[in-house]
């Protein structure tokens, strides 16, 4: 009887200890997950704490009873009579709940991002990032953006709106080269890196992003250079087209010369035949020689040194109008052509509408501009000059050379062309 009692005491002690441990573990875990959104786990842990605590208390009471041999209440007697394996099952269930909850809690903790981890990860980004309230109060700014703020505006990033205003249109520190203003301001830092900023408004949050565009800028520069080279090439192609005209003319001349040569041969043969008394048609032979000599004569006369201006002066003289030019005629080929083109137009108009006998052309150079003024000594216009097709096309040609044209009707007619000075081409 004494041995049985001792065994009971041991069993009681073991069960009590185990459930005490469960109670403690449940309480600790409950405190850990109290802030978490885990309603089910919390309920299980509370149940586990209460039941295990209760079991623990019952067995503690039993132990006291065994020691002091007092009578126990019926309900405790009944509970104590439950087989041990039931308590073992309850223990296994509770310990499983605790283990499961603990593992789940730890996994969640690993999965969840803290503010610090967000900041840490953003700091590792190669781009600059800043989030702020609408009023400019910074919520989050990574290291790169802080670095850029120091470099570009020379101070901490305290107000995102002020920072953006400086970036887009304000003054930056002296040693920073600003490449772009506006929506995508761009800067070149001392280390040669180029940073481009962008601004986005996301509801009540503003976001400023800085990207390293050094490589992109280099590619763009190269592209620009290639584009310029292409333009030069295209221009050369165009100029080539003009020189081909001369080549074509040369081909035509050669063809004519070949024909002359052939006709000269015919003339010699015809003459030879006449001298040998095989032909009596002396007049036709004379005509052939006349024609050939005229051609050869013209060929030697041709020196080909006419210029548009000299041709214009000849034409004006033929039309009975004296042309007086003061100043230096533009030497640039396009401007020179326009000069003559306008002179022809003015000459025709001055004869037709003003019965003029003299055309005055004045060329002035004012700073970076060439001003050409065409006037005549003819009758003054009776009404305002209405621009016709000739002047319209002249205006078009002037604008193509980045110039402008003005017509004055009162007190006398004058046409003025303003052209930008051009550098001498090598």
């Amino acid at each position, binding site marked *: 009887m004494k041995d049985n009692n001792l065994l009971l005491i041991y069993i009681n002690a073991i069960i009590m200890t185990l459930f005490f441990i469960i109670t403690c573990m449940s309480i600790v875990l409950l405190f850990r997950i109290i802030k978490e959104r885990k309603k089910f786990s919390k309920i299980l842990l509370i149940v586990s704490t209460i039941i295990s605590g209760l079991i623990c208390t019952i067995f503690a009471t039993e132990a006291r009873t065994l020691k002091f041999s007092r009578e126990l209440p019926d309900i405790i007697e009944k509970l104590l009579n439950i087989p041990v394996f039931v308590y073992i099952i309850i223990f296994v269930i509770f310990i499983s709940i605790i283990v499961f909850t603990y593992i789940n809690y730890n996994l969640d903790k690993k999965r969840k991002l803290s503010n610090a981890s967000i900041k840490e990860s953003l700091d590792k980004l190669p781009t600059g990032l800043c989030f702020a309230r609408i009023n400019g109060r910074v919520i989050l700014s990574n290291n790169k953006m802080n670095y850029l703020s120091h470099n570009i505006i020379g101070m901490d990033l305290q107000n995102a709106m002020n920072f953006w205003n400086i970036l887009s249109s304000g003054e930056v520190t002296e040693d920073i080269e600003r490449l772009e203003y506006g929506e995508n301001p761009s800067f070149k830092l001392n280390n040669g890196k180029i940073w481009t900023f962008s601004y986005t408004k996301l509801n009540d949050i503003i976001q400023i992003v800085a990207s390293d565009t050094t490589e992109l800028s280099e590619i763009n520069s190269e592209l620009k250079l290639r584009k310029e080279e292409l333009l030069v090439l*295209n221009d050369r192609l165009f100029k080539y087209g003009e020189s*081909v005209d001369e080549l*074509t003319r040369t081909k035509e*001349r050669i063809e004519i010369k070949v024909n002359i040569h052939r006709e000269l041969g015919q003339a010699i043969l015809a003459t030879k035949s006449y001298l040998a008394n095989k032909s009596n048609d002396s007049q036709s032979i004379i*005509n052939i020689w006349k024609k050939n000599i005229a051609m050869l004569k013209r060929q030697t006369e041709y020196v080909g040194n006419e210029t548009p201006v000299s041709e214009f002066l000849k*034409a004006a003289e033929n039309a009975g109008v004296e042309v007086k030019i003061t100043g230096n005629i533009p030497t640039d080929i396009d401007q020179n052509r326009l000069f003559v*083109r306008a002179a*022809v137009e003015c000459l*025709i108009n001055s*004869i037709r509408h003003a019965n003029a006998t003299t055309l005055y052309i004045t060329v002035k150079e004012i700073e970076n501009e060439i001003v050409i003024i065409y006037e005549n000594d003819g009758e003054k216009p009776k009404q305002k000059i209405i621009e016709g097709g000739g002047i319209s096309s002249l205006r078009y040609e002037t604008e193509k050379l980045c110039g402008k044209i003005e017509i004055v009707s009162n007190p006398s007619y004058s046409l003025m062309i303003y052209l930008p000075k051009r550098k001498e081409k090598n």
Partner: protein
Amino acid sequence: MEKYKVLLVEDDPLASQLIEIFINNSGRYTLEKSINSASMVGVYLIKNKIDLILMDVCTAFNANGLDAVEKIKKDYPEIKIIIITSQPEHSYLSRAKKVNVDSFWYKTVIAEEFITLLDKTMAGEHIYPDMTPTVMIGNAQSIDFTTRELEVLRLIVAGERDLEIAEHLGISLRTVKNHVQNLKDKTGMRNRTELAVRVRDAGFVIIDPKK
């Protein structure tokens, strides 16, 4: 019978002299004046009565004869005008018809043919060749190109880039690239520059610098 007065606009002195001989030997025409640039024609017409103008297209100082004709026909519709050219430029013929040129002559050295053309023109006839002379551009004949390809070709010769051509013609960049590729395939040219140079050399496309 009074001879017809002729104004010759030709910048090549040798060609000019040849035509002068043809005219003066005809007995029906007299050469009133020979000038080398279409830009000066307007000045000469003010004081000189002319019945017929023989006008080259590419004249001195980059003056285009067809542009001059357009203006002359407005101011002097009674003057007969014959375009004389040796360039097989594909647009000249249609442009000449558009600006009401009376006759069109591809230069030859045969006098009789030329004087007959003058006579028919003065009699009120309009003499035009059936088509522009065919020239070879690499492996292709000038008649092998479509109208759109010719438009693209003209802009290539003018030194425009694909994107500019697309904007100019109002077509997509991809279409322009296709046309350029087709042109290269047809002619066998390796690149657009070679294509442009060959086309320009042949006189098939001539760009007016003023346009």
